């Protein structure tokens, strides 16, 4: 099993969810996140005073999938979350040892 963590633009969330749905991914965890990378934030102006906004709002999505579809998931997110502009986000992938469904106690693949 792989865990895929993607930081994406906020307006891309629905598109990514639909695309993942269509390749058989049936669940994810979404977190409102803030951060910066190469964009280095932006400036907002209130009453003439400039404020440096260092952390830009993003969505972080976490999903755990079977090894067999991990590459497809990554490719799907990369494609749908892409606008071609700086600030599109990043994807991180790592191995998952165990997964357990709390209600039934099912493990690993059955729990996904």
């Amino acid at each position, binding site marked *: 099993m792989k865990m895929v963590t993607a930081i994406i633009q906020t307006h891309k969330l629905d598109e990514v969810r639909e695309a993942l749905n269509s390749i058989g991914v049936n669940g994810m965890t979404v977190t409102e996140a803030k951060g910066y990378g190469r964009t280095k934030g932006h400036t*907002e*102006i*209130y*009453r*003439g*005073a400039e*404020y440096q*906004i260092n952390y830009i709002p993003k969505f972080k999505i976490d999903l755990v999938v079977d090894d067999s579809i991990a590459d497809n998931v990554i490719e799907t997110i990369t494609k749908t979350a892409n606008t071609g502009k700086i600030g599109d986000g990043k994807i991180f992938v790592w191995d998952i040892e165990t997964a357990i469904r709390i209600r039934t106690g099912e493990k690993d693949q059955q729990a996904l």
Partner: protein
Amino acid sequence: MFDSGDTAWILTSTALVLLMTMPGLALFYAGLVRSRNILSVLMHCSAICCVSSVLWFALGYSLAFTEGGAYIGSLSNIFLLDMARDAATGTIPESVFFSFQMTFAVITPALIVGAYVERIKFGAVLLFSSLWLLLVYVPVCHWVWGGGWLADMGVMDFAGGIVVHVTAGISALVIAIVLGNRSKFPDQISPPHAPWMVMVGAAMLWIGWFGFNAGSALSAGSDAGMAMLVTHLSAATASLVWLTIEWIRFGKPSLIGLVTGTIAGLATVTPASGFIGPIGGLICGLVGGGVCYYCVDLIKVRFNIDDSLDVFAVHGVGGATGTLLIAFLALESMSGVGLEEGVSSISQLKTQIIGIGSVLVWSIAVTLAIIYITRRLVGLRVESEDELEGLDYKAHGETGYNL
């Protein structure tokens, strides 16, 4: 002896002016601070409302509005002991006049909140506001509206350009300087946490201001009607002025900019609202919007003074600007009510300058003294650790947003 129409309108105006503080000003200010201080700002406005009301009843009203000397009224009507149930002020019950004036005594010290947000001790807010109401607002109110020496001199201030906005504005600047800037001001400070809330508050202020200005006619006739008209015109015009300047300067017109322009226009037209005509209202908006915009920049950016929510630049400068404009806009040739017989614009302007100048000097001196007393008795500023963590939890044990 009472005019029911007049009485009904002033009853309504009283509610409108209270709405300006509760919750208009409170929300206007609360949206401008960071999320960890929202409750403290709402608390400041609410507590000042309560304290000022009781003090106005106990002492303030009597000292401001009974005949006394040129500088202060008498103690003959403290706790309203001298007011009969059916006493009259003009064509309305005195109880209504008292309450209407009380809402002014509520909002004026609350305006100063904008200067010291996010770093002041709550006890200091209460003590400072109480002393300030009795020692700055009440005497000036007597000078201008209670038959005092500025009234005798012919100073024109219809609804409080001097009495409300100049007193609060300059005192705000003084306490901002003495208290010092918020930590990390100006570079590292976070922007307003809820601009939408600022707009909601400003809208309530705008509506409430109809009671403030048109209510100050103390009658429900043409004076009130024209005051309401020019008030609205000035607010709308100043909003557009602010919007235009920002659009040209920064490429984007902002909501906070527009509503700040609204308040600048309202403060500017306040002293003039009962004396001028429609074109005068338009001019108040044009001038007030431009001058206040410039002053916000001047105080915050150039002078680096953390009058956090721009009380001086918007209220003080706006109120003073309108007070000066009266000398020209009140002329009959401008569709105004006209100046006193034999008084020219220039001589009226001199009178207005003396009015503003003397109130500035009094406000600065007394505010400094009050700050000194407050610092000795309760202290002014919270610990820097508390400032960083926010006053909501540190001072009040509550949190604005439990998500």
